[in-house]
């Protein structure tokens, strides 16, 4: 039989967990909401403007583990979020590519001595990318491609998803050479309300630089590149609204750095990166992401 103290603690924990879903967990989800790029170039946590061939399919399986914790140690809140994201890209025309992302999510939440766990589908994303500018030269290319999409509430509302139909869009510019690749992305997420909860909109800028470490010289026998990768991500999130009221413990500005490695062959690309916050200027008591580990493999069919 549980003691009244235990019941009270459980009640408080459950109350916090409900809040965490609305605040911390969803704030964390923002960190990884754009960590899937299914195009063939090298970014680990961002997108690229480089093309997908007509009628070609690229599949990317990405694993992302994010740990978040309380900045105010006394509350001992922690959230570990693990996502296995399956992403598909399809080249409809030489300029237009379709993408779909379906995440499988596990979220472990700890509040003091109480832990809970949720597992299931996350919110799926569908988007299109259209190349508006291309400049090709010997061994280099510059591409600019806007994108737009929708995030669907395929996850469990308040558990592994936020229940709303959100839209997002932005523009990607990629400058690629045989020695290095630079991807830049500016994006906006317009998040809508569901069941009284309205996650704050967000604007993000991401930049990824990939430098070929090996081989030193490209020849006809070269079949693979080994890249060092460095990525910078900046996000500004508006405050969430719950029942029409702004949540002071949500939103804020974050800046992340993601060093990583990537191996690219003719058929597949594998990468690994660790995303760490440089600036965590979050509002109130919102949970603070400590790190994310990202790894993926993409295969060209």
């Amino acid at each position, binding site marked *: 039989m549980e003691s009244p103290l235990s019941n009270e603690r459980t009640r408080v924990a459950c109350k916090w967990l409900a809040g965490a879903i609305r605040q911390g967990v969803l704030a964390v989800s923002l960190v990884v909401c754009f960590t899937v790029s299914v195009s063939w170039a*090298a970014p680990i946590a961002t997108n690229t403007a480089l093309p997908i061939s007509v009628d070609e399919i690229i599949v990317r399986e990405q694993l992302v583990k994010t740990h978040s914790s309380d900045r105010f140690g006394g509350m001992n809140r922690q959230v570990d979020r693990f996502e296995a994201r399956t992403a598909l890209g399809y080249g409809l025309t030489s300029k237009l590519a379709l993408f779909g992302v379906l995440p499988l999510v596990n979220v472990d939440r700890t509040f003091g001595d109480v832990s809970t766990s949720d597992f299931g589908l996350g919110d799926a994303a569908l988007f299109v990318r259209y190349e508006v500018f291309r400049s090709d*030269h010997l061994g280099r*290319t510059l591409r600019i491609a806007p994108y737009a999409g929708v995030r669907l509430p395929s996850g469990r509302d308040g558990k592994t998803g936020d229940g709303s139909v959100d839209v997002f869009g932005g523009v990607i510019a990629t400058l*690629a050479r*045989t020695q290095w690749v630079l991807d830049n992305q500016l994006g906006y997420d317009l998040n809508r309300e569901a069941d009284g909860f309205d996650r704050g909109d967000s604007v993000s800028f991401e930049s990824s630089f990939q430098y070929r470490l090996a081989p030193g010289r490209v020849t006809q026998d070269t*079949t693979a590149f080994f890249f060092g990768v460095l990525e910078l991500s900046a996000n500004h999130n508006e405050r969430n609204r719950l029942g029409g009221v702004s949540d002071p413990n949500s939103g804020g500005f974050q800046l992340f750095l993601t060093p990583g490695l990537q191996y*690219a062959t*003719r*058929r597949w690309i594998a990468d690994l990166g660790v995303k760490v916050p440089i600036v965590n200027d979050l509002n109130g008591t919102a949970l603070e992401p400590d790190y994310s580990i990202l790894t993926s493999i993409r295969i060209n069919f």
Partner: protein
Amino acid sequence: MKSTILFVVAYALTGTALADDVQYDIRVDGITCPFCVATSERALKKIEGVHAVGSNLETGTIFVCADSQVTFTDGQLKRLFLDKGFTYRSFEKKSACSIVDDEHDDEELRDIPEDHVHHPDTNG
């Protein structure tokens, strides 16, 4: 003397095998990594009569070894590489192949050993 005879026989046999092959060196702009050039190579390999395809990213060249009956046109190649997301520039037709395809997943291409190369006359 014996080795000379063997060389002549081997030369004649390989020469017969490759006698009808030609090579297209296709200049393509915008290809920057092994992963991105692979789809173009696969598309070229699907063309009947094409035996081997290789590439050199540094020179932006895709090499195609094919039967002499296989012919490419600027329009055809422009369309093919446009669909693959790259920009076709030009091609040069050579009377002999200098590449082979090892049929591995990586589609690694190697230079043919010198003693297996057919050297037709300069008129092709």
